[in-house]
């Protein structure tokens, strides 16, 4: 490398060649206009359409993610024995009370495959949670959202696209508010 550096003409030739190859590759690697983010498969990842699911709630009715299109959705996957889940749930309840009428929907998915419906109900009653508590009895949503730690939180925009993934907790109300506020301000 040094032999190129110490000779100005060699350096100039090397630079010109490198820039030419770089410009050629940049041109060759451009993305055709017909290829857009619309072709992305559903995946629990920011920028991808959120994987759809339909689960029974503690109240017995079935709630589907697809039905929430037009709302900003916070999917929180939790278990009753998980300390950080317990710690952050009151903040999520406060957000729901404050912003449900602005189009915020909370879907609290209990990872029932590693918990129990009875414990989930007791947890929700104790904390006075008023948003839908969904039961992932066979773990399908836990697997589809590749949950490796509890709690895991997925923030989904009004267009059904995952905007933010937050692994672990507890999350503060302010942190969640900072993530949600720009999405709530987007037009429905």
């Amino acid at each position, binding site marked *: *490398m*040094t032999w190129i*550096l*110490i000779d*100005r003409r060699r*350096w100039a030739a090397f*630079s010109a060649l*490198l*820039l030419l190859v*770089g*410009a050629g*590759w*940049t*041109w*060759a*690697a*451009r*993305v*055709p*206009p017909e290829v857009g983010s619309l072709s*992305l*498969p*559903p*995946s629990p*990842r920011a*920028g*991808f359409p959120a994987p759809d699911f339909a689960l029974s709630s503690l109240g017995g009715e079935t709630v589907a993610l697809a039905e929430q299109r037009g709302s900003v959705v916070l999917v929180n996957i939790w278990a009753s024995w998980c300390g950080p889940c317990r710690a952050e749930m009151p903040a999520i309840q406060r957000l729901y009370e404050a912003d449900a009428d602005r189009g915020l929907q909370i879907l609290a998915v209990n990872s029932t495959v590693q918990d129990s419906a009875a414990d989930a109900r007791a947890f929700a009653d104790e904390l006075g949670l008023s948003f839908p508590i969904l039961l992932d009895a066979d773990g399908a949503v836990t697997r589809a959202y590749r949950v*490796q*730690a509890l709690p895991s939180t997925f923030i989904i925009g009004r267009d059904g696209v995952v905007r*933010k993934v*937050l*692994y*672990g*907790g507890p*999350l*503060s*109300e*302010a*942190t969640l*508010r*900072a*993530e949600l*506020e*720009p999405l709530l301000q987007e037009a429905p």
Partner: protein
Amino acid sequence: MLPVIQIGRLALNAPGLALLLGLWLALWLAEREANRLGLRGDAFSAALLVGLFAGLIAARLAFAARAPAAYLSDPLALLSPNLSAFDPLWGALIGAAVALLDLRRRRVALPPAIDALAPTLAIMALALALAQLAGGDAYGAEARLPWSIYLWEAWRHPTQAYAAVAALAALGLWRLTRAAPLGPGGRMPLVVGALAAGQVLVEGFRGDSALTAGGLRVAQVVALLVLALCLWAAPTLRRRG
């Protein structure tokens, strides 16, 4: 992809861990390099640490600025250990500015200090690539190749691994040219240029590029301009005679 390493009840954020290890290695190497270049290594590392803390504070405050009312009503949330609650761009800008100002305040000569920092950029680029591999970020375009990885419901180019190799190549270039007859500040454009060349190459395989006119990838265009600037600057910083 392994965003979280679960050890019993302890959940470690793997990308954060990779960045932390990279930062530690980068600071160690920078201090060693500063001593080799005749700088006061202790003053140099102290300035870097000041910049690091300033950057962390700025990153958290910039994040909080997205919802100021929420943070004003709960100021303790500013101390939350959550790694998502940072604005990395503002953190990097403010951190770098504060570190430079502190280097001046401590009367550390700036051009050799910049040389001492050159390998840290390559180390941090390597750590970032490994963090992205752990978190599944900066993923590649779909491709069925013997070395493709299955990520986000498709077989893709392992662009994070390509980026790691490019960072290692930049580090190798820095090592090879340590004895080259470059004047003070001359090593930085070499390393930055190598990293920019790697970015031009790797970005072309990405599946999540931001695009500009004609479908060109923004990061490739920016990296190409940075590469041109570095190629122009490197010989002008050559030691005279």
